[in-house]
């Protein structure tokens, strides 16, 4: 498990990351979400030891993270870069050797991954000859081929076509299935919603939401939509209920939480007054929650 505790980083007068804390659990895929400049990359670079920490610490299984732990962590930086003039297989072997693999072990792992991405026949091509999407695949191989103990990936899905997104997602799931913690940042909320067990939302350098997708959805008061056969104005006077919006026979209400069972009481009252066409819990899409928390 990776724990980020109170990480803070200032650049001059600007506090890019401000007292950020969250955990990446073993076997969990944690999505790291936030707008441009929210501090995601800065946090990840601090976690990887690439940037000095002004305050706070990073823990690995409960103790301060060491260089050896980081060496066993697969990392993918945001900007994609490899040596353009070097052959793919040579370049990945080099990175594998730097991670402590023998050249032959590295080569076997590389070929297995290249085959998987359908790039085996291009192993001897220079990196510059690959499309951007394929270069990204090569870079993710660099992060995964050592069978790392954790993964920290900065925007691994950006620039991939939908098929590539699926195969990348499958690949990441295999690694969480091995029981390792995976943290990745993304702008694509639908993807995060689909893939992640856990979500951390960052805005202006601070954590504004942290939890499972369901927890995030349930973070505000419960909301219901009520559609009646006649005017719904009376819901304003029902105890334990706050009418957010009443428009003719339609109403959107929130439970204030003061009175248990207020939703059922409301439904009974509505039915006693006549026809009830709809009574439904409103589940906001993640994008709406995201806008709400980052506003």
């Amino acid at each position: 498990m990776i724990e980020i505790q109170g990480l803070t980083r200032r650049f001059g007068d600007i506090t890019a990351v401000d007292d950020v804390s969250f955990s990446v659990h073993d076997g969990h895929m944690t999505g790291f979400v936030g707008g441009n400049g929210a501090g995601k990359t800065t946090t990840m670079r601090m976690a990887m030891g690439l940037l000095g920490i002004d305050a706070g610490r990073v823990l690995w299984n409960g103790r301060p993270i060491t260089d050896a732990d980081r060496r066993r962590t697969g990392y993918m930086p945001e900007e994609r870069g490899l040596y353009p003039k070097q052959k793919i297989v040579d370049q990945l072997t080099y990175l594998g050797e730097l991670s402590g693999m023998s050249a032959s072990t590295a080569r076997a792992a590389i070929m297995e991954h290249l085959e998987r991405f359908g790039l085996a026949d291009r192993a001897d091509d220079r990196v510059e000859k690959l499309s951007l999407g394929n270069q990204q695949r090569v870079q993710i191989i660099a992060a995964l081929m050592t069978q790392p103990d954790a993964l920290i990936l900065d925007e691994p899905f950006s620039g991939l076509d939908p098929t590539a997104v699926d195969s990348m997602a499958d690949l990441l799931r295999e690694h969480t299935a091995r029981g390792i913690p995976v943290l990745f940042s993304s702008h694509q909320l639908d993807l995060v919603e689909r893939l992640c067990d856990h979500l951390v939302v960052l805005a202006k350098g601070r954590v504004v939401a942290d939890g499972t997708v369901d927890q995030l959805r349930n973070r505000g008061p419960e909301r219901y939509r009520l559609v009646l056969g006649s005017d719904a104005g009376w819901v304003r006077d029902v105890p334990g209920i706050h009418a957010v919006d009443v428009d003719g026979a339609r109403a959107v209400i929130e439970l204030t939480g003061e009175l248990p069972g207020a939703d059922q009481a409301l439904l009974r009252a509505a039915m006693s007054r006549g026809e009830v066409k709809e009574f439904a819990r409103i589940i906001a899409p993640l994008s709406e929650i995201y806008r709400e928390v980052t506003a």
Partner: protein
Amino acid sequence: MSTQTNQTRDHTFSRSATPPPAPTAPSAPRAAWAIVAKREILAKLFDKSFLIGTVLTVVIIAGFMVVQAFMQDRTQTYNLVASGSDVSYAKTLGELVTKVDDKVVVDVRSAATADAARAEVLDGSADAWLHKDGDDWTLTAATEVPDGLNAAASTVVRQSMITSNAEKAGTTVAAIEQGATLKSGILKGDADKQGFAKVMGFVLAFLFYMASIAFGMQLAGSVVEEKASRIVEIIATKIPVRQLLIGKILGNLLMAVAQMVLYTGIGLIGLSFTQYKSYLPSVGAGVGWFLAFFLVGFLVIACAWAVAGALASRTEDLQQTAMPLTMLMMAMWFSVFLAKGVVLTVLSFVPPFSAILMPIRILEGTAAWWEPVVALLLLIVLAGFIVRGAERLYRRSLLQTQGKLSLKQAWSAPE
């Protein structure tokens, strides 16, 4: 997506279902710098422009030596025409000329008249026409009197005329010339050798300069390339940045020294086929010292280039961050021409100038045995400081990606 993906996935799942394999969790590579150095060397060996440059330089050095060896054995034969009573003097001159310069041979042709002789020069069957013009012997050619012939013939004419004039005056040439020549000599080394040493010194200094610029620019370029592409971030999570720097410097140092050994080796082998082969022992020792100075000097320069690369964030910044270094390189190169006397002696101890100037003094034979030792020690001391400083600057600036840094910013940058 196809069955293939599913198969692979099944395969992987079945693997993770079985007891976990022996941990492949990699440990720190024992000598990460060696892996980096190996990559640097292989990258050079497969770099076409590096290979072409090396082969071309070898060809130029070898070609120069071949031309030298060929020229020294070649004798030049000139056709000299004379007419009437001048022919007998021309023949005497022809014999004497070869005694003055053994590379000049003169064939004398006789023409019936002065006009016929002139015609032979004009149609190219003779190189020059020897004739008396008043009291003076004159050499006339079609467009230009050949230098070799002119020089040798002048000496002969001068000597023979002085001899006959002396006889007429009832004395001897020796009596006339007594005390009239100014002899020149030098106390250190000998003149011929020193001229040769000067040329040799320029050539070595030029090779030093070229290697520093070519390897240095590429090294700085590769540092900034790694930085701009962020591959350095991947590397920095795997090995300490210090190891990356050491590997890059050593890889380039090894290649630069190997290239220099190749160039100077071919130069020395070539030298043994020329008239200068008697200088070989002393030149060989000078070249040996040169290589020692190059080894340490290049280490200093390579460290500085690596820092120039690390200070930049993009390749475009490099020209600016490398500016002080290019100025220093230029200053070192110009010192080879401009430094004389005391200035040369002093600068030959001042690192990094010593790396280029002391070998020149050794070749010229003006350095006492202890002087290169002291200069080399001073250079090694500087190298120690530079390597440490460069390591700090490189480490602190390598992961800074907000534009280019000044030396001061990099020195005090937080890690």
